[in-house]
Every structure is written in C-alpha cells, then in structure tokens.
C-alpha cells in the first residue's frame, strides 16, 4: 500500500485570515505569537545573559542584519556575494566621520546608514542589468578591490585602519540599539514584501520581462531595493565600527559576505525571519565550537550540511508549515 502525505490548513488558520479572528482570544494569540517571539526573545531574554554571551548576541545581530539585507536583494533576483561591501562602506563612513570630524555615534551611524546606502547604490548602479551569477561575481569582487585600494593608497589609515573610535556608553545600550534595528528591519522588510510593492519586487525575480511589459521600470525598482538592502548593511557596518572602536580593511572581509548567505540558506530564503533565525543558529554555534580548536570549522561545516540536507526549504518555512498545517499520511488508492 502506497502512502502519501496530506497537508491541510488548520481551521484556525483559515478563520484567522479574516477579521473574525478579533472575536476570539485563541485566534488572536495564534496571529500574535509568531511576531511576539522575536520581540520578547531579543528585548527581554538577551539582556539577561552574561556579558560574554551578550557580546555574542550583538555580533549575531550584526550578521542577522547583513543576512536580511542579502535577502532583500534576493527578493528582486539580485544574488549578492558582497555584503562585505555594505559593511565596509558603512564602517569606513562612520569611522572617518568619528575619527576626522569627531562626530558622536548618534550622528555617524544615521549618516553612514543613509550615505552608505546611497554610495553602495551608485557603485552597483552600472551592474543592475546583470542577473544571477554575473551580479554575484561583481559584488564579490568590489569589496576586495576597495580593500586593496585602501592598502595601496594608504588613505583612511591604510592597513592600520582608524583606531580609538568612540565606543557606545555601555554594552546594554549597544545591545538595545542593535536589537531594535534588527526588529525594525525584520518587520519592516516583511511588511514591504507583503505589500503590492513587494509583489512587483518578487515579480522582477520571477519574470523580469513580464514586469517590463507591465509598464514598470525594473531598473528603478532594483535601485530602490539595493538602496534598502545596502542601507541596512551599512547600518550594521557603522554599528560594528563603534562596537569595535575600529574601522579598517577587515570590514571588507569575506566573512561578512559568506555568513549572511549561509544564514539565509539555512533559515529560508525570502522570508526575512529565516535569515534572522539562521544567523541566530550559526553565529552562536560557531562560538560554542571555539573550544574544538582546529576541528571547529569541520564540525561547523558538518552542521551546515546537516541543516541544508535535512531542511532544504529552510528552518523558518518548515516551522511555519508545521504551525499552519496539519500533516497526515493517507493511503493512495
């Protein structure tokens, strides 16, 4: 007897898609709990950790921002392998404003977010016509070029970088700033994707010629998406700079490009919550494996493979499906 898996939407899901949800506590909770988990988890749970783990959460959140920024570009079909570009640009803008002009973080971070977003968008403007692997190659190369440029011309501190930058007043302040940024990005991006504007964006990755023939200028929309994505990446860079009190060539390091992609793939591409979950699994995991020394990368790689093979759709879509649907095995007649 052959069996197949049947998936049925839970009754509560079908009902709560409508305004009737407001009549029942159970259904309101069904709708609210998924959104409440990251808010409560980040704002209430994280501050209770030890200093060391708070530090880990902060660097995790930086990667989570980069991963969500990667996901935003991916929504428009732009495969980026150069999140380090955004991180590095944001880092150098905030760093130099602080180092040369003495501006405090409260000014450098917003300036680096918007200004960095604009600079990255302009840098990527000529290659927006490219898709897939061609766009990926360019984004991979640009941060490497910029880091060599800094080395060769010795501008902005050269290989030494800019050191002694203003730190945040204390760790908790930094923690809350980055967590609010993560939550704003998560809910903001999810809202954008759910809107009609988001449909146009996903339409570009699905079928760009169809969007062109619908009378929309796809390059203008891609430009907007790159600006959104790179601003978030630049914010991460600017924040990281003040956290480390240092801006330098490591800002363009390959880590910042690869980790966001891994986090998004593990978590579930195109959901924004997925890359967030992915980052919150992979970065702390990498910290925990630190005790293994040289074997760390082996085990880390093994975990990555297990996730990708075991849950190919991504962790978030998997959880979402379990939450929304009943699965059962039925006989095939």
């Amino acid at each position, binding site marked *: 007897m052959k069996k197949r898996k049947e998936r049925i939407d839970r009754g509560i899901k079908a009902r709560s898609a409508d305004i009737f949800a407001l009549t029942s506590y159970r259904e309101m909770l069904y709708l609210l709990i998924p959104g409440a988990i990251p808010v409560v988890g980040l704002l209430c749970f994280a501050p209770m950790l030890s200093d060391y783990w708070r530090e880990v959460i902060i660097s995790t959140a930086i990667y989570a921002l980069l991963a969500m920024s990667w996901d935003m570009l991916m929504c428009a079909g732009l495969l980026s392998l150069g999140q380090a570009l955004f991180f590095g640009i944001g880092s150098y803008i905030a760093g130099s404003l602080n180092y040369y002009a003495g501006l405090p973080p409260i000014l450098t971070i917003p300036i680096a977010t918007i200004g960095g977003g604009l600079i990255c968008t302009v840098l990527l403007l000529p290659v927006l016509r490219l898709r897939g692997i061609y766009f990926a190659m360019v984004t991979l190369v640009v941060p490497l070029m910029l880091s060599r440029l800094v080395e060769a011309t010795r501008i902005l501190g050269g290989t030494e970088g800019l050191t002694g930058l203003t730190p945040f007043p204390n760790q908790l302040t930094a923690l809350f700033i980055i967590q609010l940024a993560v939550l704003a990005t998560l809910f903001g991006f999810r809202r954008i994707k759910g809107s009609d504007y988001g*449909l146009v964006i996903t339409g570009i990755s699905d079928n760009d010629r*169809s969007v*062109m023939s*619908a009378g929309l200028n796809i390059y203008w929309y891609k430009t907007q998406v790159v600006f959104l994505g790179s601003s978030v990446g630049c914010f991460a860079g600017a924040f990281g700079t003040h956290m480390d009190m240092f801006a330098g060539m490591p800002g363009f390091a390959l880590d910042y490009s690869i980790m966001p992609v891994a986090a998004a793939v593990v978590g579930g591409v195109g959901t924004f919550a997925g890359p967030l979950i992915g980052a919150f699994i992979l970065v702390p995991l990498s910290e925990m494996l630190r005790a293994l020394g040289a074997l760390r990368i082996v085990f880390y790689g093994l975990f990555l493979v297990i996730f990708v093979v075991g849950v190919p759709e991504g962790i978030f879509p998997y959880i979402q499906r379990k939450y929304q649907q009943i699965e059962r095995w039925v006989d095939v007649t």
Partner: protein
Amino acid sequence: MTDQTPLLRVSNLTKTFGGVTAVSNLNFQLQEGKLLGVIGPNGSGKTTLVNLITGFVKPVAGRIEFRGKNITGWPPYKVVGEGISRTFQMVRPFYQLPAYKNLIVPLYSPRVKKLAGGRYGDRSAVALDLLEEVGFERDAYVSYKKAGALPQGYLKRLELAKSMALRPDLVILDELFSGLSLAEVASIVPIIEKLKHQGKTIIMIEHRLKELFRIADRVMVLNYGRKIAEGEAIEVMDSPAVKEAYLGSEAD
C-alpha cells in the same frame, strides 16, 4: 478616411541579429479601432516586430510612430506608458503568485495610476473583475490558484488579462491561440471581438488562419522579414505570393 492620422505608423523598420535580417524595411499603418492580423511562416519576423514596437529590442533603422509621436527605441515601460500593451507567445506569468495577484503588477504601473486619477483603489478587486472579463469563473477557486498550477488555457487568458489591466489603446497579441484546443480558442474569440467592439486597436500575430480571417479587418503577411502582402483577408488569401510562401504546402 485616408486623411486621418493612423494610430500606429511603422516606416522602413529594419532589425538584424548578427548576419540575419529579422525584419527588413517594413512599412505599415494601423487606423484606430482596427484589427490587424500578422501572419507568416516560422522565423518570418513576426515576434521580432512585436518586440520592436514594444521596445524589447531596438531597431537598426526605421521609425515607429504612435499617435504621431516617435517612440522608436523607447524602453518597454515608456512604450506601455503611451498605451501599447502586449502578450507573450510563451506565457510569462508569475508562477509563484495566485492568478489574481499576477494582475497586481500591471495594476501598479504609473499608467493605471494616471488613468485612475491618481488613486489606485483596491487592486485585488479590480484584478478579480479583469479575470472575470477574460473568462475566469467568478467566485470560483481558479482565480486564487497559483499561476504555476493553472492549465495552458487559463494561462493564456491570464496573459490577456495582464495586458488589458494596463488599459491600453493598442493591444498586441503574440500567438494567443498557440497551444490551445479548438474549444479553448472558440471561447477566447468572443473576448477579442468584445475588445474590438470597445474600440481597442489590436494587432494579432497568429497561425490559426481560420479564426484570424474571421475577425481581422486587414491582414499583413511577412516572409523573411519582408512584407509580401497586405489587404483584406480574402485578397490576401488569394494572393499567389502568399500561397507560395506560406500556404504553399496546404494549397497543393
């Protein structure tokens, strides 16, 4: 009335791909409210002509005028803004999206906003109305189905609805009937007749001559990128050049 300015005027249009001349020195005009059929054997440049008019490829030489305005070489989104919309021969839906959500994208365009007086309203409701017009059963599940799960007949209708969503003045239908059963074709023909009745100007690229000759006002025949005949359907049918190039095997 021959003194009237035509809606579309194409003059000396030429396009080459490498050494191949896809469209060669093509001239024609189209009056408002008329239905022009374009026929020709495979590779005769019909789809290239559509791509040229809608801006997907740029011509090597020649001129395309719409309402007397030179639109040669404009990008697709600007051409649509002027009021020309098209369908694709190979359907191009957004497979991940439900059928009615496919129409949100064209409804998002600046042209629709302009025509609606700056207000979009509820796009989903408009989308469902449009789908009904092209033969999606009202209140049936089919409008909410993912486009990837729709049968070919519905995908073609969706393609038509997508171009109608733009409220075009000129619609270019690129082999709308290809890959459809006779029954499906028979159910789409009245929709096109209705569009014609509403005063839309239509260009139909088609291989199904029987249906085309029934609804077309004029027919143009292409072969190797050249116009070899143009006129009333019956005249064109009887032209010896056409018989030789296109209907040759059938006439034997």
